[in-house]
Structures are given as C-alpha cells and as structure tokens.
C-alpha cells in the first residue's frame, strides 16, 4: 500500500505545534453538530484574504496570480487542478495554501496501485466490539492534496468524484459528510504520458479551475535561489486564518450579488462555447455555475459585494479552458483551448441591454 496520508509534518521534521489532523482520530463530520456560518464583515474579509495571500507570496515568489486564483477557488468552494511541468512549485503552492489555514490537511500521493478505499475509507470488523467500524480515508480533511492525480487508475480517480461534487463519502451504504471547507487541490504533469491515466472529462469538469503555474521570471528565480537554499520556505509559514474564518468567508462570497445582465452574459458565454465551430465539446451548465461562483469569489476578494463582467472575464479562461475539447481541425491548426476562450470573450457583447436602452430615456420631468 503506497497510501500516504501525511500531515505536513513529514516535510517538516522539526514540526512545531501543527495541530494533530490525523483523520483517523477524527469523528466523521456527519456526527458532529453543524455550526451555522455567518457572512463576514468587509473589513475582516479583506484583512483575512490579505493575510493568506501575503503568507503564500512569501513562500512562492512571483506567482501572486496563481496564489490569488487558488484562494478564489477555495472561497468559491471549488477544487483546483494545478497542471504544469515538474518542479515549478505546484505541490508547494498546494501545501502553502493548506498551511496558511488552520485546518486539517491530507495528502494523497497517487500511484497506479492506489485503491479507491484508500481515498474514501474502509469499514473494518472490530473484533472487540464485534461490529464493522468505519475508518475514514485520506479524503476526510479540509484540504486534500492529490499529488500527480493522473498516475492513479481511473477507478481510484473516480472515487474522488462523489467527494468532490457532493462533499460526502458513501461506504457500504452509509454516507459520511465531509468537513467544511473542503477542497481538493490536485496536481498533474502534462508531459509524462507513460503510465498515466489522463483525467476523464467528467472528472475534469469537477475541478473548478485549472492553473498552469508557468516558470518564474528571472528576478523571482534568483530570489528563490537566494532564500530557499538553506531551509524550506514552508517552515516559516504558520496558519493565518482558522477554518471557521474560511467558512465565514465562503458565506460572504455566497452573498455577492449577481445582476441579471451578468447572468445573461455568463449564459451567452456558455452558449457561445457550445456553438463555436472550433470546439467538439462546449462548456457544461455546471461549468457556468462554477464560473459564476469563481467570479463571485473574485469580486469579494476585490472588496465588492456585486459581480462585474470583469470578474467573469478574469476567471473565464481558468475555469473554462480545461473543460472544453477542441475540434480536431482546430487542434491541428495549433489552436489552444485558452485561445478559443479568449476569442469568444472578445466577441460576446458585455451588456447587450445597454446598447438596446433607448438613449432618449429622459430623466427630466
């Protein structure tokens, strides 16, 4: 069994006082009383998000955009897929995000022989009590880091499906609620093809956003060599917000107002992907919902309580690009999914109602 369920201790031998987040010791979430989470004050929200981003940026140089998007996905209750070549800091980003929040974190290193029960948990016969006892799997944590998710078999990958979508685990007919906030941060390597199982479309659709980290620029790289030589940067990171705070931040995001025209804009974006001649598969209705949620989180991070088209535009590429499938012809011409999304964004009118508004609407009496 190559099942690693680690608390980040492993990376930090001289672990200070990280909380004991061993899932084994935890009672299933469903058994605990659900505490209502209230929305957060604007100032507190801003301060909290500021703290998280600052913490991440001290660890990962020159990747503020990626960090911000990761936080956006967390606040939008989505799951994040980090896809890039090895060694650009995918796992580091995931781990840092997890560390900044005072919550349970588990990490699953996906391998070809990983079993679904390793992810979800298993019922074991307890000799003493003469009954089956549920032993939660690695997924029972607030943040689940799935490293190299495409190395596991399709069977194991799909074990994550229910967890990601419904935030619950069903084993032997029993459903167990997962803790809130719950977020899966998966990484995958697009280059290595041998022995990998590319994520099926259904599962890709469950990730709210895909981020490509990209190489850092020269200064950031120099800086990294300078500071990260001796010690792991993670060592300095401490939790800056509690899980409860995150939950209330999420509640805040949920209250962001979405006007009718934004909904229309989002829908017309989705329809445009489905009608585009370049695409074999357009964006799903679920992806529209996730697009809107991600946009709401962006708006909240900007300190607004209503959505702007800019928010939708800013996350559209990350949210939509990994869900659509290019037409064979378009793919052969070197077109990319991102390019198609950008072209659609450049074509869809933002506020059709504005153009239609009669200019002569007089406000005078």
């Amino acid at each position, binding site marked *: 069994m190559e099942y690693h369920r680690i608390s980040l201790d492993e990376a930090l031998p001289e672990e200070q006082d990280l909380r004991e987040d061993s899932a084994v010791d935890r009672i299933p979430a469903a058994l605990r009383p659900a505490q209502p989470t*209230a*929305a957060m004050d604007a100032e507190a929200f801003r301060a909290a998000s500021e703290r998280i981003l600052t913490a991440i940026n001290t660890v990962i140089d020159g990747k503020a955009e990626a960090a911000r998007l990761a936080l956006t996905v967390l606040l939008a209750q989505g799951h994040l897929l980090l896809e890039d070549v090895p060694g650009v800091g995918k796992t580091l980003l995931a781990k840092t995000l997890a560390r900044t929040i005072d919550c349970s974190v588990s990490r699953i290193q996906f391998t070809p022989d990983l079993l679904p029960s390793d992810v979800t948990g298993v019922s074991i016969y307890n000799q003493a009590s003469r009954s089956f006892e549920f032993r939660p799997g690695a997924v029972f944590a607030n943040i689940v880091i799935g490293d190299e998710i495409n190395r596991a078999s399709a069977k194991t990958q799909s074990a994550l499906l229910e967890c990601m979508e419904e935030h619950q685990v069903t084993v032997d007919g029993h459903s167990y609620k997962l803790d809130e906030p719950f977020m899966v941060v998966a990484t995958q390597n697009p280059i290595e093809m041998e022995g990998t199982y590319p994520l099926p479309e259904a599962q890709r659709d469950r990730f709210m956003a895909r981020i490509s980290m990209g190489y850092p620029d020269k200064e950031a790289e120099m800086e990294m060599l300078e500071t990260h030589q001796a010690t792991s940067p993670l060592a300095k990171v401490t939790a800056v917000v509690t899980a409860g705070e995150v939950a209330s931040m999420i509640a805040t995001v949920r209250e962001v107002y979405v006007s009718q*025209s934004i909904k229309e804009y989002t829908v017309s974006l989705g329809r445009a992907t489905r009608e585009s001649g370049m695409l074999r598969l357009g964006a799903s209705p679920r992806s529209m919902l996730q697009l809107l949620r991600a946009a709401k989180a962006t708006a909240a991070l*900007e300190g607004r309580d209503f959505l*702007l*088209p800019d928010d939708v535009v800013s996350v559209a590429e990350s949210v939509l690009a990994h869900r659509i499938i290019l037409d064979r012809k378009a793919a052969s011409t070197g077109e990319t999914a991102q390019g198609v999304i950008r072209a659609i964004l450049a074509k869809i009118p933002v506020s059709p109602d504005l153009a239609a508004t009669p*200019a002569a609407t007089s*406000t005078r009496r």
Partner: protein
Amino acid sequence: MTLTPQRSAGTHAGRAGAAGDPEAAGSPGLESPGTPKARRAVGAQPWLMALAVATAVAGAALSLNGVLRGWAWYSPVLSTVLTVAFTMAGLRALRWRSVFVTAGALAALVLILTFTFFRPHSIIGFIPSGATMTQLGRYLRRASETVLAESSPVAPNAGIVLLVCAALGLTVIVVDALAYPLALPATSGLGILALLIVPAMIKPQSVGALGFSAAAAGYLMILGCSHWFSPDARTGAASVRNPGQFRRGSLTGAVALTATLLLQLVIPGFDQGAFPQGSRLNPFGPASGLNPMISLGNSLRSPGGDGRITFATNAPSTPYLRSVTVDSFNGDNWAPDDRDGTRRLGTGRIESGVESAATEVRVVTAVDTGQFISPYLPVPFAPEAVNGLTGRWSWDPATLSIKGVDTDSRNQRYVALSVAPQLTPDLLTQATGPVQGVPEQFIRPPDNVPEIVRTTAEAVTAGSATPYARAMAIQRYLRSVNFTYSLQSPVQGGYDGNGLSVLADFLNQKSGYCIHFASAMAVMARLEGIPSRIAVGYAPGRPTGATVSIGGHGALPEFEVDARDAHAWPELYFQGLGWVPFEPTPSRGVVPSYAEEAAAPSGASTNENNDGLIPSNSPLPTPPPSVAPLPPSGAAPRPDAASVLLPVLYGAGAVLVLGLLLASPHLARTALRHRRVGGSGVDSAAASQAWMELRDLATDYRVPPRTSETPRHFSARLRHAGALGEPQGPDAEAHRAVRSLTADFERRQYGRPPSVPGVDGARPGAGTPAGSAAGAGSTGASAAPLISAVRSSLRDHARPLVRFRAEWLPPSTLAAGRRAATAPFRAARRAAQRTRRGLAGARSRVRGALRRVRRERWLRRS
C-alpha cells in the same frame, strides 16, 4: 456580516450627503448646497422663463414697426405672445411632459388667434369652426396680396396681422422648446434672430435700437434663467477651474466687435454706415424687378446694378423705357391698376386711340431684358407693336402698359415699334381744348389732398394761362434750387414710399427722389385740371459701345440700363397731342426738348449713372461709358418681381433652416448631452445616462468602446489611451471623473438594486466604506461636472481636426443616425434571409418526399 462596500456611499448616503461631501463640494460645478434643492422644485422657473421668452419675442417684434405701419398691430401681437408663453409656463408648473406642453401651447395659439381675429366667425368666440376656415382663407389671401403688392411699411390689415401673430406665436413655442426641454438656451437665439432678419432686410433703418435692445434683453433673460435654474456644468466649471472667465468673455466680445467692424470693409456693398445699416442683408440681391412705387427707392439705392436690360434703338434721342403707369392717387399705397378686364391679348398691334396733331416718328427698339423680372414689359412710349415675345402678353388701351398673362419679362428679346410725336412748345401751347376721350380715372383729383399740396399747386401755377404753361410752371418749381435730389432724406424723414401724406412731407422737406417729384407733378397737374399719371420705367441708360443689327435698320447703338436707372416721371394729357412725358426730377433723366426752358436752373442733366447722393446742379462732363462695374447678367439673382416681403421671409427661413441643418449634428449631440447629464443626477438612471454620455464622448474623440468590452476595461483603456492626458497634473481630475463615472455605472448596472434589501436585513457592516479601488471617487453627485471635466480634457488633448469633428460632426450622433437610417434595410434583409431559408427548407422537404415516392415505386417494381 457581509461585504457592503460602496453601496452606502453610492445611493443612500450619497443623495443626502452630496452637498456636504468634501469631495463633492471640492469638485467643480457644484456651486452651492442649495442648488439641488432649487432644481427639484418647479417653483418660479417656468414663469420666469415664460417672461423671458415673451420679452425676447415681443421685443424683437417691436422692430417690425416700419414693416407694418403704426402701432395698432402691436396689441394683438402682445396678447398672442403673452398667452402662448404663459400657457406653457402654466402647463409646466403642472408638471406636464414637454411634448404636451408644446401641444398645449399650439392649442392656446389657435384659440387666442381665433379669439382675436375670428370672434364673430367661431363658436362662443374662440373655438374655430367652418366659418373660421372660410374667413381664414380670406385673410390669408389678403395677406398674400399685401405681401405681393405693397411696399413697406404696409398697412396693418387683419390678414397681415394674423400672419404676424401666428408667426410670433410659433416663434415663442420654438424658442421655448429650444431653451427649455432641449436645454439649448443659447441656440434659442436663432428664433429671435429669425424675427430680427425680417426688419433688417426690409426696413431701410434696419432693426432699430428699440427692437434690438428689447430682443437682446429678452435673450439675456433666457440665458440667465437657464443658467440660474439648471446651471450649465461648463460655465460652472469655468468659475472654479478657470478664473479667467471674465477675461475670456471680454476677449471674445472684442474679437467679435472688431470682426464686425472690419468685415464690412471687406465685403462689397457695405459702403454706407455700419452693419447692418449700410446695406441690407438680402440673399437675393436688390430687387431687380421693377416694381412700380414699391422698390424704386431700394432699386435706386442698390450699390450694384442688377436687372440689367440692354436695348438698341434708332431713336434720335435715347428713349425712356416705360413699363407701367400709376393713375389712382387715392389711399396710402399707390399701385398700378391692372384693369385686367379691359386688357387686350396680343401685342402685334397696339392702338393708343389718340390722334396726335404732331408729326410722328416711328422708332424701332430691340430690347433684351436679360434677368430683369417684372410682369410688365419695358418699351419706349408709345408702342405700336411688339414682336418676338415668348408667352402670352396683353396690353391696356388706356395706359398702353404691356403685361404678361402667364409669363414675365425674364429673358425676353423683342423688337418694339413705337411712335414718338415731334412735340414743340408751340404745339403744346396751342393745345388748350377741353379734354375729351380720356378715362375718368386720369382726371379725377384724389380725395383728401393735403392742404400743402393744394396751396403749392395754386401758388406755383398762378398766372399761367394754358395747361402747358401750368405744367411748365410746376416742372420749373420742382426743378428749382429749392429741391434737392436725395435717396436718403426720405428714409431719414420717414416718408420713403408713396401716398398723399408722403407727398405732403416731400413738399415740406423739398428733398426726395424721382417718385416724389413725379407724383408731386402728377397730383398738382391733376389739381390744375390736367389729366395725369405717373409712368414708371427706366431713365435713358448708358451706351455700351456695342452695336446690334436689326433687319432693315442696320447696326444700331446699344444701350444698357439697370436698377440704378429706375425712374418715374409724370405723363400729362394734352388734347389733340395725347400723353406727354415731363421730367420734374432734377439731375435725372433728360428733359424733353418741348419742356426745356432757358431759365431752368438745372436744365442740363445727365444720363450718366449718378448715385444721387449728392444733388448735382452742374452739368457733369460725360465720362466714357460704363464707369460703374457691371455685373455679368447671368449671375444676377432672380427674385419674384412683385414681392419684396416674400423673398425676405423665405430668405430668413432659408438662412434659419440652413443654419439649423448645418448645426444639427452638433445641436443633437448637445441636446442629448444635456438631457443625459442635466438631470438631477442622483437617481440610478442618471448613472447609466452619464455612462452612455461618456461612451459617446470617447467615440467622438476616437476611443470608441467595443461591445465585448467591460465597462472597467473601457474605462482603463480610455484613461491610458492618451486622449485624456497624463493621469497626474492638470488632467488628474478628468481621470478621477472617468473612474468615478465607471464606478457609479457599475454599481447601477451590476450592483444590488436599492429597493431589494440585503439577504440578511440588518447588516452590521452596512455603511462601512470599503477602501477598495472601486469605491474611490464615487460620490453619487451630479454627473454634469464630471462629464464636463472629461470633455474638456479630451478636447484639450485632441488634434484640431478631431476636435472639430467631435464638436460639429460627432461620430456618435452620426452613427446613431446611420443606424436609424439603415434600420429598415436591415429589417428587410433579415426578412429576406428568413424567407430564403424557409423556401430552401420547403424545397428540400418537397425534394425528399419526391425521392421517397420514387424509391418506394422502385422497390415495388423490383
């Protein structure tokens, strides 16, 4: 607990706090905290505005005195103007919509006109009925006759006053509409200007100080009212941002004044006095048609010669060209009596019916009228036949005037045969027999002859025995040194025109021009028992130096006359000799040999073109021909001969329409801007109006928004395009304004509508300002100063051509116009597409069905 960033500052708090907000107060254009309050209340504004408009229009109407005689017409005008203006004010005070206010004003205009003019012909005194329409037709006919036939000042008959009242009422409505709902107070001056153009073109004294100052005062009141009640953002901005407003204003004024004074030196025709006194503005040029009595003075005063006629003749002395006579000296306005009933068609043979005792000389004259337009044909007296005319012409046996039936004198070339009796003083002296065979209207003395005319006639002719002696005495008297020839003194003395009262003035002042001399002699001769009439036509002109050959007569010298040679002279009837012309006007024309006398003080006269400004008693040396510059005849304008008022009215209208047409994109754009940002500016619709204005402004200055662009992106692009200048420094305000407008619009367009309460009613965080970038600069204040700041920055950084285009041919307006114009085509194209698609579908279905049938048949067969 939730996020509540700028909502609080935006709509609720912003409404009350706009005035007190330090940022709002600091921004230009918000003048005082009281301003929004004054704007909200209707209060006195409509009434003051109505007063201003009424003052302007009624004041401008003051200058119509002189176009219309006396002041009797002014009270109906005043009542009409006041009724219309205050009806609008009343409706506005009741908060009616602008469209209905205008409609109501039109209705009020109709009612007051009915009440004033058609009281007996309407239902209960002011409701129009069928009888009103009949009466209206009668009045309009009368008005058009007046306009066509009379000279200014015209008698204020009901028709013309009705016309004036209606026009002024409409002007009130137009001026008000421009000033109030369209929010173009400055442009409303055009309506007032249109009124002033009429006297400026018709009256020799032009507008006059009284009318001008009253109209100007009204206009200033309109501007003041508009500024007071809805302060224009631009001027408001100027007071804070540019303290040099007064300096700039006086500089503009000085430049305008200098231009006005210098321009008249450059423009030909402004040779007397200052604009518009020197030469009256007349788009058609001076009336080139020779309208007897009416435009004679104007023709003579015209600086250039128009209506040029050339003629060649074999007469021993250059003949007068005579076109019409005036014989009735009653009433205030003498006009030719056409006597259409007794006219005879055809000019092949014209009979004077007078057997002259003198030997007669046949004269052949070939005339080319060129651009001269008149219903009457200029021919030498007395015509026997006129050949070569086009169109149908008729002649009057009594006066021998030749008049077109369905045509006029323009571009006519004809040969006139005339008879000139060889008269001598002896023959005339012998003609003492009682007058017989002359129609009564030439003999009957006019009624109500002023005393001075009668006494003068008696004094002058005392001691003269024969009719000829009496005629000569009158002519001698009029040609004496006591009388001076002047085109200006009748104008200055207020007796420019004709009629018996004018005659009395003339005899008092002893200064006038041909029409005065001719009418004086004609009236006095008639009082002395000599039948008389006034002939109107042309004094002998100048030789052109060219010759014209006429079949059978060889090459004849050619002469020319134009408007400056227009002339009037008396014709007196002597028994046995017929009608005999005299020449009482000093320094004009040629005194006929039979009327010459050695003692005549100014016996020598000249047929040169004398301007008549300086009475000249000494014979002028004959200068070489064509001293005066002659306009090419082809370029001469062509007004209707009989009308002076009409072309002026048309001209005023055309100038107004043309000006409005050229300025219409600018006006439409300005009106749209005022409508968008002139409102109270704190309600949510104002934000999107202001946003649309910002988009259009950017379009005008070549930073057009794209449809797929988010407001924020567009705003950023606009700020970084360089069109606004640097974000720091003097243009920081414009940048701030754009940001603020964007934030306001975003909140209005995408934010939570104010009526919908938050998800959790009482939010503890409400009212906490979020220190985010989006919230900065949004004050909820009026958009007008923001827009004007953006506009001035855009203007400052645009190239001149772009600036010009943005002002006068704004692309946003033109694009909107284009869209509106092509909308029907687009709809048609869409319909055609749909039809085509439907047809194609039907065809394929039919084809599929056929294929199926064929296939089944084939299957069955096999």
